[in-house]
């Protein structure tokens, strides 16, 4: 009963997504982002075959994708609203440029980038369609936008994304040219990794220091009681869209 009362208090004090990525940047970078590596691998491989150009990575997090793209010779600008994650990005990718900002008001002129990426972040935004319109605005006519969402974890009916991103792209006047599903199985390596995942994810654990403090004990118990281990299957959706050659983007 005590635990249930404290849970209610946790819900009463929600952290915003922005606050989460300041509070839990280290756990996110160390324990959550690695579970999303299928998306970094896919986008990196896709752009490896493309002409080198200018790439914007909006909501770049700790810069792990930006670093890989810059190493391939693209001119990469990463943007995020978390100072804590940007500090990591700067130290990871010295050949990329990083800017603090919000997806709803990007600080670049129309048609600046050949490719604009927003990986696993649009569903977390307050105004996802507005964000997609901004991605389109800063992308060159006939340029490409790549966005993605986590679809499910472990079970097909355990939906975390229902394909809304595709609708957002169409609403912003874009043409979807590729829809790609990705699947990746990942084993949890230790109780510490499980605790880091729970604390680093956007969710209720962010919302109070007391709740976060409970995580390591919960993770240790869970791990001890699952001698078979814990394997998560992640499924992602990736969409590629083009910006019209003569942009008539729906900005209304």
């Amino acid at each position, binding site marked *: 009963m005590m635990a249930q009362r404290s849970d209610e208090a946790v819900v009463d004090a929600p952290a915003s997504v922005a606050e989460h990525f300041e509070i839990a940047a280290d756990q996110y970078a160390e324990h959550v982002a690695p579970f999303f590596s299928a998306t970094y691998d896919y986008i990196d491989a896709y752009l490896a075959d493309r002409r080198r150009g200018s790439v914007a990575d909006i909501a770049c997090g700790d810069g792990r994708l930006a670093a890989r793209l810059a190493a391939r010779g693209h001119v990469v600008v990463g943007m995020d609203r978390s100072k804590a994650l940007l500090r990591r990005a700067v130290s990871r990718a010295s050949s990329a440029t990083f800017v603090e900002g919000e997806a709803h008001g990007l600080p670049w002129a129309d048609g600046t980038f050949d490719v604009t990426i927003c990986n696993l972040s649009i569903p977390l935004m307050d105004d996802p369609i507005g964000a997609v319109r901004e991605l389109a605005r800063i992308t060159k006519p006939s340029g490409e936008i790549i966005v993605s969402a986590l679809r499910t974890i472990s079970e097909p009916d355990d939906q975390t994304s229902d394909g809304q991103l595709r609708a957002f792209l169409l609403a912003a006047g874009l043409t979807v040219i590729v829809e790609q599903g990705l699947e990746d199985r990942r084993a949890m390596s230790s109780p510490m990794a499980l605790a880091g995942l729970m604390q680093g994810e956007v969710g209720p654990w962010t919302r109070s220091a007391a709740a976060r403090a409970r995580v390591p004990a919960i993770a240790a118990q869970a791990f001890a009681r699952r001698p078979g281990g814990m394997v*998560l299957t992640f499924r992602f959706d990736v969409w590629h869209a083009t910006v019209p050659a003569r942009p008539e983007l729906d900005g209304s």
Partner: protein
Amino acid sequence: VTISVETFGSKEPLQSVDVDGTVLDVLKALGLSAQVYLVARDGDVLPVDEPVADGDRLLLIRIISGG
């Protein structure tokens, strides 16, 4: 056997499920994955083969929520 279930961090009301079996059976009845949810009772995380009893009040803890 009626079990009450709530989800940590959710404002969803308490659910009741009729399950005669284990923690895993409760998760299956709710259509949830044992890999993604931990189940606790009285502050104690339960193994998936733990039997449940009538009147149990379980707390579901989602370990990852996406994004």
